[in-house]
C-alpha cells in the first residue's frame, strides 16, 4: 500500500513536471511570434503614409517617396501567376480526382505535386532563370517572375482542387450520369459547382503564398527603382524592394519604407488567409 502510493505520487509528480515544461514551451514559442508581430505593427504603422501608394521608391538618401512601383509590379505578377496557376492547377486537380484516381500515373503526379508544394522556392527561381531569363528572353523580365510565381501556385491549387472534388458525394455524379450527361458535363456543371467554395479557398491560399515570395523573383523579375508598367523588363516588386531597402539599413527612410512594405504584405496575406478560412467553413456547412 505504501509502495503503491509512493509510486502514484511519483507518477503524479512526473505528470506535473512534464506538463509544466510543455506549458513553458508553449509560452516561449508564442512569445517570439508575438514579438515579431508587435515589432512589425509598431514600426510599420509608424511609417505608414499616403505617399506609400502614390509615389515610387525614392533615390537613396532622400526623404519622402513611396512604394507605388513595387506595389504595382507585385500586383501584376501575382495576378498573372495566379491566373496561370489556377488554370493548370484546377485542370491537374480534376484529372487526379475524376480520371486518374488510383492509377500509377496519378499516384506519381500526386507524389511529385506534394514535393513541389514544399520545394525550395529559390530553386524554382533558378529554373525559370535558366529557361527564360538566361535562355529565351536574355534579360530580367516581369513575365519570368510571373511564371516563377505560377509554378509555386500550381501545386497549392492542384492539391486543394483534388481534395475538394473528392469531397463531392458520388451520388451527385451518379444522378447526373443517370440523366444522360456526359462526364465532362458532370464534372464541369455538377462537381465544380459543389466544390466551388473549396476551390476558391485553394486559389486564395495560393495568392497568399505567392504574394510574399521573394526568392523566386531575385533571379527572374529582379527589381527596378523606377516606375514601369512594362512586364517584359525588370519589374519592381514589394518583396525584393523590401529586401534591398533593409540591407541598405544606413538610410533611415529606406528602413521606414521597408517596414511599411512588410506590414502591407503581412496584412494582405493574413486577410487572404482569413477570407479563405471563412469561405471553406461556409462550404462545410452547405455540404
Amino acid at each position, binding site marked *: 500500500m505504501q509502495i503503491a502510493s509512493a509510486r502514484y505520487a511519483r507518477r503524479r509528480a512526473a505528470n506535473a513536471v512534464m506538463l509544466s515544461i510543455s506549458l513553458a514551451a*508553449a509560452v516561449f514559442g508564442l512569445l517570439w511570434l508575438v514579438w515579431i508581430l508587435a515589432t*512589425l505593427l509598431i514600426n510599420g504603422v509608424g511609417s505608414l503614409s499616403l505617399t506609400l501608394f502614390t509615389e515610387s521608391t525614392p533615390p537613396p538618401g532622400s526623404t519622402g517617396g513611396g512604394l507605388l512601383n513595387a506595389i504595382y509590379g507585385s500586383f501584376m505578377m501575382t495576378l498573372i501567376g495566379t491566373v496561370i496557376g489556377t488554370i493548370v492547377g484546377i485542370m491537374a486537380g480534376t484529372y487526379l480526382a475524376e480520371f486518374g484516381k488510383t492509377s500509377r500515373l496519378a499516384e506519381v503526379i500526386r507524389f511529385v505535386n506534394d514535393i513541389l508544394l514544399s520545394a525550395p522556392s529559390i530553386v524554382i527561381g533558378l529554373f525559370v532563370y535558366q529557361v527564360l531569363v538566361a535562355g529565351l528572353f536574355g534579360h530580367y523580365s516581369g513575365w519570368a517572375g510571373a511564371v516563377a510565381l505560377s509554378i509555386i501556385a500550381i501545386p497549392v491549387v492542384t492539391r486543394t482542387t483534388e481534395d475538394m472534388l473528392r469531397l463531392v458525394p458520388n451520388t451527385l455524379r451518379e444522378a447526373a450520369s443517370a440523366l444522360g450527361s456526359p462526364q465532362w458535363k458532370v464534372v464541369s456543371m455538377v462537381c465544380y459547382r459543389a466544390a466551388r467554395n473549396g476551390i476558391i479557398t485553394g486559389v486564395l491560399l495560393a495568392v497568399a503564398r505567392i504574394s510574399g515570395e521573394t*526568392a523566386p523573383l531575385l*533571379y527572374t523579375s529582379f527589381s527596378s527603382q523606377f516606375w514601369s508598367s512594362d512586364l517584359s523588363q525588370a519589374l519592381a516588386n514589394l518583396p525584393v524592394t*523590401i*529586401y534591398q531597402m533593409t540591407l541598405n539599413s544606413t538610410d533611415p527612410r529606406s528602413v521606414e519604407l521597408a517596414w511599411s512594405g512588410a506590414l502591407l504584405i503581412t496584412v494582405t496575406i493574413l486577410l487572404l488567409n482569413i477570407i479563405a478560412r471563412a469561405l471553406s467553413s461556409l462550404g462545410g456547412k452547405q455540404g
Partner: protein
Amino acid sequence: MVDATSQSIGMRIGARVARRQRMADKGFRLTTQFFAVLVLVLLGGAIVSLTVGALPALRAFGLGFFVDPTWQPPKEIFGGLAPIYGTLVTSVIAMIIAVPVSFGIAIFLTELCPPMLRRPFGIAIELLAGIPSIIYGIWGFLVLGPVLQHTILPFLKATLGQLPGIGFLFSGVIYGQGIFTAGVVLAIMILPFITAITRDVFETVPPLLKESAYGLGATTWEVLWKVVLPYSRAGVVGGVMLGLGRALGETMAVAFVVGSAIKINASLLAPGTTISATIANLANSNPSQLLNSALLALGLALFVITFIVLSLAKLQLMRLQRKAGG
C-alpha cells in the same frame, strides 16, 4: 413504314450525339491529363535544366565540387562545401530548438488548453505559418540580431564556450549575424509549421484509445507518452521532416542574418552562409560563366537534398494515412 424511318433517323441522330459526347469526354479527359502531366514535366524540367546549367562547373571541378571548401572568385575557384555545411548546420540548430518547443505547443493545444481557447489558438498558429519568410528575415536583421549580439550570444560564449569539447563552437568575435542567429530565425519560422502538423497528427488518435488509457488510471503525461506518441509516430516524424525540408530550402529568413561569408568557421557565432543565401546574395551580380554554373550546381544540390528529405517525409505521412484509413 413511316414510323420505322423516323425511328431510324432518330437513332442515327442519337448515335451522332452520343459520338460527339464521347469525343468531348475524351477531349476533356486528355486536357486535364495534359495539365496533370505538366506538373511532372515541371519537376523533370527543373532537374534537367539545373543539371545542364551545372555541367560547366562540374566539368571544371569534378564531383569534388561538393566537398571542396575553397571559394575564390578572383581565381575562379569554386567549391560548394561551405554553403552546404552552412545549410545543414543552420537546419540542425533550427530543428534542435523548434522540435521540442513545437511539441510543447502541440501538447498544450490538444491536452491542456481550455476548450474555449483551443480554436483561436489553433487558428493563430496556422495564420502565423502563412507569414512569408522575408518578414522573419527583416525582423531577424533589424531586431533579433542586435539583441542576440548583446545578450544571449555573450552568455552562450561565457558558459557553453568554456566547456571542453564543444567550447570551440561558441568562441570568437560576436557579430550578431552568423550561423547561430540564422538557426534561431529558422527555428522561429518553422515553429508554427511543425506545430500545426503535429497538432493535426495528435488529433488523429482515436479518443477511445486515450479514454481507455485514462480509464486504467494513466496520467495525462503517460497517455501522451505511451499512447498518443506511439500511435502517431509516423505522422510526427513526417511533420518534423517536412519542417526540416522547409528549413533546408529557406532563403530570405537566412540571407538576412547568416552573415554571408562563404567559408567554414568552427564557431557557430561566426558569419557563414547557406546554399540558398549564397544564391540569393549573388543575384544580379553579373557573375562569370563559371560562377553562374557553380550557383546552379549549388541549386541542384539543394534540390536533391530537399527532394530526399521531403520524399521521406511524404512516405511517413502516407503510412499514417493508411493506418487511419484501414
